[in-house]
């Protein structure tokens, strides 16, 4: 259902809150398939972002799926997989 889908805007909000934004990075650009490294987010930043998503949505993410996500698209898919399976 649309109300629980995790969007790019949700991810950007989460990243800003969990880890901030590096100098010279524009999260509002076309970042869906940009590598997280290029966006200035290392594994701890993604761990922190995943932790924030878990608290906000009341879900338990597959840690490996989040760790393996190299791009915003992969991260969003990993979260939505859980939201779908939780609400199904």
């Amino acid at each position: 259902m649309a109300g629980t889908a995790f969007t790019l805007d949700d991810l950007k909000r989460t990243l800003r809150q969990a880890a901030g934004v590096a100098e010279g990075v524009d999260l509002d650009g076309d970042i869906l398939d940009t590598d997280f490294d290029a966006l200035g987010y290392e594994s701890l930043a993604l761990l922190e972002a995943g932790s924030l998503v878990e608290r906000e949505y009341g879900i338990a993410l597959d840690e490996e799926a989040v760790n393996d996500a190299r791009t915003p698209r992969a991260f969003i898919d990993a979260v939505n997989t859980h939201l779908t399976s939780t609400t199904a």
Partner: protein
Amino acid sequence: MSTRTVVTGIGVTAPNGLGTDHWWSATCGGKNGIARITRFDPSAYPAKLAGQVPGFQAEQHLSSRLLPQTDRVTRLSLVAADWALADAGITPADLPDFDMGVMTASSAGGFEFGQGELRNLWARGAGHVSAYQSFAWFYAVNSGQISIRHGMKGPSGVVVSEGAGGLDAIAQARRQIRKGTPLIVTGAVDASICPWGWVGQLATGKLSTSDDPTGAYLPFDRDAAGYVPGEGGAILITEDGEAARARGARVYGEIAGYGATMDPRPGSGREPGLRAAITLALADAALDPAQVDVVFADGAADPAADRTEAEAITAVFGQRAVPVTVPKTMTGRLYSGSGPLDLAAALLAIRDGVIPPTVHIDPCRDYALDLVITAARPATLRTALVLARGAGGFNSAMVVRATH
């Protein structure tokens, strides 16, 4: 002749001034940075005074990417390092990564960050603990973050020896420069003025419980009754003297000598180690005591420790034979930050021909020291000795010398 290590950049965050110029003019003017704690409500604690760095807005200097992962001490360290590099005229991106290292000291790590995560753990649950707690609390974090920010991949690390650590880190920087790394960012900043940090400091029993900002920290005074802690310190750029000269750098002075000792076991009756540290530092610098123009003392403000320091100074230099000062009477004791801040003061004292004062004290007549009290004293200076001691028996002495 072995490699000379020179200081080419200074960055200061201190309770009586943010930035080198503000701090140095405040220090020469005797401006006190000790006041009632404002960072938390101290009314429930026996000690209520501290030296707090004024007006520091981290978000003005650092990206939002750094803020969630850094304690106040790391933010102060990063900004001080930025200022020191700018002061030295160094653009790290222009230099080979492995030609630059970072060697700082820390006595508490990122204490307030840890306090917040402990609160999260117990009040809200393990899922609320920041992933950045993994390193944000750690002693080496300031070195690590400076290294990452500037791409410095040469020899780096942290020295932990409480109040002596700042000088010990600079000594380690000097060793690495002698081994061939042209530039080391060094010095130290400490900052743990938060409730959790405060109870740890109170437990030592060494803190002054006076509520009078001008009467609480009185080293070498008959009324000495403990110290006031502070936050801040100095980050310095140290370089191979030849490399600095080759690039036309402005040089503040040379790290000419260093000595470090450990005190004997308490109650052993053997002599404390400070005198030997001074003697070692002078020997390392190939200087006679008479060639030292000023001493920046440790100034524990504990009657026994003050006596030990006064006796060590007079044993080496003679009675009232050299000016002695304790500018940290204006800042409180900054733990590992004090040594580098005093070293910066010593270098600027040499540059400007002025000894900053020891404020608030009425020197105890039992000590045969020529203390520079009340107001700064003009003097022609070429060589200064800086002393720093750390709880647990650490004694360090460092000599700086004009190079011109």
